């Protein structure tokens, strides 16, 4: 495989892993590769990284892919071959440089073809690869529509890469909400004062800035066994939310509730659930008890809630026939700005068996049924 193909298949891999690389960026990447010395691995790596990755949270994924494809940098012969081919085409292009545009297009074709012979041979392989890549992204889309309960571990891994995107959707929604109506009423005193400088003509209208408060997010995640697939996502989501909001406080519970904010900051996303179980006090006798958890949340953290806070609860409200203590949720609602409940069960299963979601939903601003990732993401656009 020539280096150019290698880079291309590397980019395909990045795309499959969830890093969006535009054709533009791929072009810039080739261009950058021409400008660095590949024998220095730092240079080669940086040329790829600076052009293909635009988000530091993608760095881990990028490194994994990089190691799969180019461990130890490109092979010794490849660089020379690629450079020679490109240089030949360049030389041809410059002979006809008089017409700038024509020369340019030659350069393009030269790089593009990099030996038409090779192209022909690789035609089939290329098509297969393309099908592969589009297949992969289709699969990811289908996975997003698949019920959380039926996901395999491998599928879950694949979907977890999408969590930052879902978190961003939530964040942009909340930011937009904040951005609306930025200006308050007319500030007559200031406007008049400034108009004096222009001989009494009020050229600039000065409005009072509205006092805007940044939201504080309190996320409560049920991590019990009945929702364990879902809890992977809710924890992953809260983990990603940290990047978008200055103040995110996260809590996990089964039948005890514990704060995991500082825990989430320290650990890597892969170890979320295990670490939460190992180092936070969330289990007493192991049967989910929403009522008790909400009550103790109210007792322990109620004083820290304010009208700036948003309460997001992730869980199925299956309460093991314990008392629902919905009054605790009502009291919480009185303290915060909004309460949203995200339930991984489809709506037709709500209130079946030991589910007490209606008792809680009555005290939420909205309760959403999010049985798959797409529904979860859609729910965020509706809050």
């Amino acid at each position: 495989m020539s280096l150019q193909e290698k880079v291309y298949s590397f980019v395909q891999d990045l795309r499959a892993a969830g890093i969006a690389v535009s054709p533009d960026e791929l072009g810039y990447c080739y261009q950058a590769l021409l400008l660095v010395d590949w024998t220095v691995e730092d240079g080669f790596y940086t040329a790829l990284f600076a052009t293909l990755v635009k988000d530091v949270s993608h760095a881990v994924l990028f490194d994994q892919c990089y190691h799969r494809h180019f461990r130890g940098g490109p092979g010794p012969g490849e660089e020379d071959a690629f450079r020679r081919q490109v240089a030949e085409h360049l030389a041809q292009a410059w002979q006809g440089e008089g017409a700038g545009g024509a020369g340019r297009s030659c350069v393009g074709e030269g790089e593009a073809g990099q030996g038409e012979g090779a192209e022909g041979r690789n035609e089939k392989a290329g098509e297969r690869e393309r099908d592969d890549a589009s297949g992969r992204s289709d699969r990811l889309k289908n996975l997003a529509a698949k019920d959380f309960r039926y996901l395999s571990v491998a599928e879950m891994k694949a979907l977890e890469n999408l969590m930052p995107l879902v978190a961003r959707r939530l964040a942009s929604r909340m930011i937009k909400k904040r951005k609306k109506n930025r200006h308050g009423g007319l500030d007559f005193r200031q406007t008049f004062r400034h108009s004096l400088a222009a001989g009494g003509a009020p050229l600039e209208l000065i409005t009072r800035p509205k006092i805007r408060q940044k939201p504080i997010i309190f996320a409560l995640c049920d991590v019990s066994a009945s929702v364990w697939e879902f809890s992977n996502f809710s924890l992953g989501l809260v983990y990603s939310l940290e990047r978008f909001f200055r103040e995110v406080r996260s809590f996990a519970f089964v039948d005890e509730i514990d704060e995991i904010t500082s825990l989430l900051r320290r650990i890597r996303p892969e170890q979320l659930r295990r670490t939460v179980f190992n180092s936070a006090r969330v289990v007493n006798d192991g049967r989910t008890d929403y009522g008790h958890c909400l009550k103790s949340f109210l007792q322990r953290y109620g004083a820290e809630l304010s009208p700036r806070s948003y309460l997001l609860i992730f869980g199925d409200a299956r309460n093991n026939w314990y008392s629902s203590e919905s009054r605790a949720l009502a009291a919480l609602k009185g303290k915060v700005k909004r309460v949203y409940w995200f339930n991984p069960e489809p709506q037709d299963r709500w209130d079946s068996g030991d589910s007490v979601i209606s008792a809680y939903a009555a005290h939420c601003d909205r309760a959403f049924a999010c049985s798959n990732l797409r529904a979860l993401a859609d729910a965020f656009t509706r809050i």
Partner: protein
Amino acid sequence: MPEKYNNTRLLSYPLSVHREFSKTGVVELTEKIKQIRDEMLEAGFVCDYRIATVLYLAEAMQKPVLIEGPAGVGKTAVAQAFSRARGLELIRLQCYEGIDEPRALYEWNYKKQLLHIQACAYRQPELREIEREIFSEEYLLARPLLRAITAPARAVLLIDEIDKVDFDFEAMLLELLAEFQVTLPELGTFKAREIPHVFITSNATRELSEALKRRCLYLHLAFPAPDVEARILALQVPDLAAAVREKVVRLVQQIRKLDLKKPPSIAESIDWARALFWLAREDLDLETFRETASVILKYQEDIERIRQSVGSGEEGLYLKPEPKQGWR
């Protein structure tokens, strides 16, 4: 077939890039990058091979650099040092929430225009004449973006903290970065004679638009390794005793690993080193640390917490391990 490599876009690259490539050998490329590194060092910025590579690529490809990283890690300093190293004017646009075109691009100087109209009222000039006079460059307030475009020589344009601006302003910026020309309805079109070097910094408090990211080269600055930080301190505070410097670096590096409200940045460790120098401390002992902790820690809680956990050992100050939290 070309579709396979998605490289129809390759056509649009400036020919000069390719020409330069063919003239330079492989070795020279590395030399060039090293040269940038040395020039940046002379300008007061310690950068590693990777940073130098990105700077070199940005210069050769004429693309903006998007710099991200924690606060105080030296994002702005990259642009400043680059402008010093190249001897170019630095034009800085400090972004803030609610910044708009009149503040960033250009504005007419209304007051001066009004004065002019009032002053020439007695000779009753023609309307068109007044218009010609008051809509001339003399009455134009050029803001940073217009200044970067109309600068007589190549400039370094630093767009600081772009994550603070609104989406519509970002879109305007995008258009500007693509064309480097701007049309003033009253005056005509200005086009940059030479495309400025653009540095965009972001604290990642919000996600930037894909379109903007796509156009930039990406550079992420993290807190430096101990040896790099020691070199930075040596460069910035050359008079501080090497032993004290070592201790400062060791302690700051340890403090950064804690989960603090605000971890000390490079700027703060430089300030601390300066403070120690001006206090003429020969050694960094526990007492000195307690007196000067407020230079690196900006929250009372952080200070309290560190004060309790700093101990003094043979190697200088160190952090005692904190008691583990939670139930196990």
